[in-house]
């Protein structure tokens, strides 16, 4: 058992996967000798060699498409896109190929690939390095979209993603890459995909979130507890497919729901969560669903970034609003 940061847990999972399955290969920009710009692959080329840990040319469409080809031909590629802001040229391969190769060939060819990318804001990064557009990917049938929110979940979910027989986009909340340490047992135990995690039980309100916003959400939950409001906190973890059962069960219990995400509000994944509740949990609602989300504007450069990111304060306000509703 070791105390690892989230990025160290990612590295541990990658190392474990390379170790246990010779079909696992890693590639992407700077994943070799540099160990990835966030060091997620640090030391791996030294241990597993250039064949299995490869720097690619600067070509994201190729990275994704090559992963599809290698996966269909029996490998387990784990490809990296350096920042989510550069994932867009890879989307064609995700939508038109990765997500549907199994369907198109009625199972003859499959696509057990993982595409990893750090995502999210709040680290004063340059332009295009801070966005959260996971809902674009969560719309695509046949994909899985997974986001860890702690070192242990990063380890277990990434292993699960790599072992999964279908394509997974694995988005890593870079704001908390090093924010906290957690005991992680590097014993190869995966966590289940397609299941949300109940991080905190509560009876008054359900807070649904994922990724780095789990931190602010838990912080808000603590603050609320101090005021006598018991918040239940759900980390979705797998954004696609969505574990609606866990959400609905919680809302059935609490009657109130506040959804928290960094991504722009409109057509963000929070909309899907709210829609599920409006369709299937309406009768349990004691107050309108609320979303605390990024504004529907371009993520500002660092000087104003702090004013863009939703913080615990906004979550608390939304919950108080929901509690006050009558």
């Amino acid at each position: 058992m070791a105390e690892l940061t989230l990025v160290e847990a990612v590295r541990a999972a990658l190392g474990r996967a390379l170790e246990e399955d010779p079909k696992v290969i890693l590639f992407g920009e700077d994943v070799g000798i540099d160990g990835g710009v966030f060091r997620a692959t640090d030391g791996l080329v030294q241990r597993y060699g250039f064949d299995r840990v490869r720097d690619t040319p600067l070509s994201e469409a190729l990275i994704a498409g090559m992963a599809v080809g290698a996966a269909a031909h029996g490998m387990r590629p784990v490809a990296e896109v350096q920042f989510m802001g550069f994932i867009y040229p890879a989307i064609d391969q995700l939508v038109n190929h990765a997500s549907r190769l199994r369907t198109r060939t009625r199972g003859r060819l499959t696509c057990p690939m993982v595409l990893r990318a750090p995502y999210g804001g709040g680290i004063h990064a340059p332009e295009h390095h801070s966005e959260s557009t996971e809902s674009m990917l969560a719309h695509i049938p046949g994909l899985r979209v997974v986001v860890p929110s702690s070192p242990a979940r990063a380890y277990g979910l990434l292993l699960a993603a790599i072992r999964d027989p279908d394509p997974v986009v694995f988005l890593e909340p870079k704001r908390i890459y090093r924010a906290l340490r957690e005991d992680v047992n590097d014993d190869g135990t995966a966590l289940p995909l397609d299941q949300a995690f109940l991080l905190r039980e509560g009876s008054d309100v359900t807070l649904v979130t994922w990724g780095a916003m789990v931190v602010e959400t838990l912080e808000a939950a603590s603050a609320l507890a101090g005021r006598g409001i018991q918040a239940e906190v759900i980390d979705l973890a797998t954004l696609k497919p969505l574990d609606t059962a866990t959400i609905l069960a919680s809302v059935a219990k609490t009657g109130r729901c506040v959804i928290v995400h960094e991504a722009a509000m409109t057509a963000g994944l929070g909309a899907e969560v709210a829609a599920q509740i409006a369709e299937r949990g309406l009768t349990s609602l004691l107050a309108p669903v609320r979303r605390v989300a990024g504004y529907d504007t371009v993520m500002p450069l660092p000087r104003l970034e702090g004013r863009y990111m939703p913080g615990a304060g906004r979550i608390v306000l939304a919950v108080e609003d929901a509690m006050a509703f009558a």
Partner: protein
Amino acid sequence: MRKHMASFEIDCTAYLNADGAPLGDLPDFAGDTETVVALYRAMVRTRAFDTKAIALQRTGRLGTYASCLGQEAIGVGAASAMEPGDVLLPSFREHAAQLRRGVTPVESLLYWGGDERGSDFAGPRNDFPVCIPVASQFPHAAGVALAMSLNREKAVAVAIGGDGSTSKGEFYEALNLVGLWTLPAVFVINNNQWAISVRRREQSAAKTLAQKAIAAGMPGEQADGNDVIAVRDAVSRALARAREGAGGTLIECLSYRLGDHTTADDARRYREDEEVKAHWKEEPIARLRAWLVAEHGWSKTDEESLLRGAADEMDAAAEAYLATEPEQAASMFDHLYETLPGDLTTQRAEVSDG
């Protein structure tokens, strides 16, 4: 001061002229009657398939279909040079290559008839299905080639795309990687001179498409795409190089799209019949036939029985295709993931009832 840094050359392989007369020495395999007759048979069979597919489409019994009329030598030449363990990654127009690789006419008709099972072909199990998004098969080929080389398979990934596909970023990105990592991948370009209504010369100012390989630091060459001997020869050489570990090749095959872009297209909107007529004089089947008659004793009886056989085969295939029941509607969920996630079982049930 200008220093000279590098020079590059582009060649074109051709063996038979438009009348089927040899332009010089032929490659060894051309002396083997069985081999060359097999090439001829494969081209004729492809054309029979094409004819049948168009007929089915015109009578409302097939979906939009992309004819390969006049380009049979490319797919046949390339596929006949390949080994079973190689992997083909075809664009939507390469029926010639797919049929030669062992995809059955019934399977192909099923696909073009709008049934996914057509891509679950029994034959070349590792071959890719038809690729519709132009050029997106080239990165796949790079990935397959990477897998092959890591597995020490001594196999080669062969992707085929059109002249239009050489304008897409993914083509260059993949080519660059094949050059860089000396991957066992061969990119064959069916330059049929048209991308729907856009002429080859409106696609790129490059004098040849083969020279695009120079950008990737790898070999590029042209072959006469109406000459199946030239195509097979060029592809064979490239495959041998790739199998030896010497890396990939870009091969531009010069041909002409004698038909419409697809059955949904009307090429008379943008090109003159005269132009098409002129190109009929260059088409690959008559050319090889003339040479077979002159050099390999190909007879009228041989020809007739071949044509009859091919037509019969395609009639039977059409019948089998038309007799295939559609899948259950719920099948649209059955291969989405290996195991259908919880919520989707509800949707699956709904579509079954609906």
